[in-house]
């Protein structure tokens, strides 16, 4: 199937006036070859991604409590979502988490990129250190964070007390628990933001800064009027990527707080897991999953619409 020979192809291309039979055969062959190449990946995606998506939609219309056959309940699971305070709290927590961490991630990422794009000794070392957390698993990071934020005698509380401040109830108070997860998440993600901004900064011509200096712009003015506008595409790309990632924060919360205290750090993905696998209400868990799916698709769509040239066909 991969033996499209040169003469056939040449004919098909150079003699459009001839009856199209040879050309059609060549096209068919190329089509089959193409399908052969995407085949293995397509089978994997179809079986383990597309099929589960449809399956999840079906499940979300079923009641699977307890044993026995699942029961078709129409939109009951979705109706239940609307009146479930924990669902709304989880959605709210997800949004708060996203609204707080994304700007911090991006501001720190841009600041570090500017810093580490300037003249500096041992620059490579600093960059390596900032990117390093990206290869640390969420579980290991979460475990380290649990120890650092430990309420009684954790290092952070000891340090706070050493400088005369009060220890913070990182585990038993809602807001500090959320803040501890946010800090860990920023630690994990800031390196990614720095990399993208560094790549963006590489595209800015040094002459622009030269011109800015001649016009008497100080460093802050140069940053505001040259750097920030010119890394705009990076900023938008990061905004979408960070929002998607924040909506999916799971490992850290699972390990650090388990969604607690109460439901103070419960987010959509942990709530979906809790319903699907801990309470074992799989239909309801699937319905929450569909909500996550739709939100993710919406942001992917925005990203695609605004970045079409990057990934789309020719």
């Amino acid at each position, binding site marked *: 199937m*991969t033996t*499209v020979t*040169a003469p056939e192809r040449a004919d098909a291309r150079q003699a459009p006036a001839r009856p199209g039979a040879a050309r059609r055969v060549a*096209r068919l062959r*190329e089509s089959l*070859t*193409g*399908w052969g*190449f*995407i085949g293995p*990946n*397509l089978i*994997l995606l179809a079986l*383990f*991604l*597309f099929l*589960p998506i449809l399956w*999840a939609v079906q499940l979300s219309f079923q009641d699977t409590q307890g044993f026995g056959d699942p029961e078709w309940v129409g939109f009951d699971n979705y109706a239940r979502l609307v009146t479930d305070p924990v669902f709304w709290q989880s959605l709210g927590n997800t949004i708060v988490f996203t609204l707080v961490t994304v700007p911090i991630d991006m501001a720190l990422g841009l600041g570090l990129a500017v*810093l580490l794009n*300037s*003249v500096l000794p041992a620059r*490579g070392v600093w960059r390596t*250190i900032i990117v*390093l957390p990206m*290869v*640390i*698993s969420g*579980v290991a990071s979460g*475990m*380290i964070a649990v*120890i*650092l934020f*430990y309420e009684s*005698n954790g*290092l952070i509380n000891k340090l706070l007390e050493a400088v005369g401040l009060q220890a913070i109830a990182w585990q038993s108070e809602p807001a500090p628990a959320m803040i501890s997860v946010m800090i860990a998440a920023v630690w*994990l*993600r800031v390196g990614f933001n720095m990399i*993208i901004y*560094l*790549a*963006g900064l*590489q*595209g800015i011509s040094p002459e622009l800064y030269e011109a800015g200096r001649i016009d008497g712009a100080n460093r802050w003015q140069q940053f505001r009027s040259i750097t920030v506008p010119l890394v705009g*595409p990076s900023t938008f790309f990061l905004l979408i990527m960070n929002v998607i990632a924040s909506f*999916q924060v*799971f490992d850290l919360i*699972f390990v650090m707080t388990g969604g607690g205290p109460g439901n103070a750090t419960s987010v959509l993905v942990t709530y*979906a897991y809790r319903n699907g*696998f801990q309470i074992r209400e*799989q239909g309801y868990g*699937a319905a929450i*999953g569909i909500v996550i*799916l739709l939100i*993710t*698709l919406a*942001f992917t769509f925005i990203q695609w619409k605004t*970045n079409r040239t*990057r*990934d789309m*066909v020719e």
Partner: protein
Amino acid sequence: MAQTTTLLEIADADILGERKARRIHRRRSSSQGERKGIVARTVIAIVVCLIMVFPLYWMLVVAFSPRGEVFEAGLHLWPSTLTLENFDKIFRRFDVATWFGNSLVIGTFVTVITVVVNLLAGYAFARMRFFGRNAIFLLALATMMIPVQAIMVAQFQLVSTLGIYGTYWGVIFPTAAAAFGIFLARQFFIGIPDEIIEAARIDGAGQLRIFIQVVLPLSKPLIAVLILLTLMGTWNDFAWPLIALKDNELYTLPIGLLYLKNQTSPDYNSIMALALISVLPMVILFLVFQRYFVQGFARSGIK
């Protein structure tokens, strides 16, 4: 912009712009004020980096400290005595070597499967015309960012139905059903000059032969990036193995870490010892192949 250059270009140029900065450095006179600026920036860089490495340093401290020491009164910023008792304990009480092996086996299978199928598909999307190409490409693009939590209940039921729940394959197949490598690969293959492929075609080579003998040898940076990112993602993966594995002889290191926490009181010294074992291979890979990791992160946008 990293997002608009091909991986080939990125591989050849230093994405972090070391060269350009050096050029600027030479051009500029290092006046008094300039030098002061460098000192200030260096101090900021050092402070930030100390904060960034501190959690990892703390993992080392806790892993090598006598049990409970870091939680005793007073600041213990380093171990009073370096001890291996925590490592000794986890190796005696838990099957750490098996967990490590499981991570390696699952990581290897997922990486080989994913990279091979992504390369093939990426090449077809980049260089072939076939019926339905754009539709399938869009479908793959649309579903790329969907998190496992959105469909995990259905995936669990599917894996149970197929009879592979609780086996290596139950973890491997859903993890290997990934599309992000397709986009990296496609972008890279579009950048390969037509002449090279056309020349091979005129010599009478079929598509598969062209791909294997001509295209792949040109694609080493791409293959390196795909292997490293896939291996890292699988090695660190948590949510899906948590659902798909039941016997602790099949646990991967992240699941083992959670199990260790639940089985001990929790004994954080042991947990940090295991955490160290679990993160060390990726840290070493990152330090050796940093260039490829950074390119992959910059191109794919996926952590």
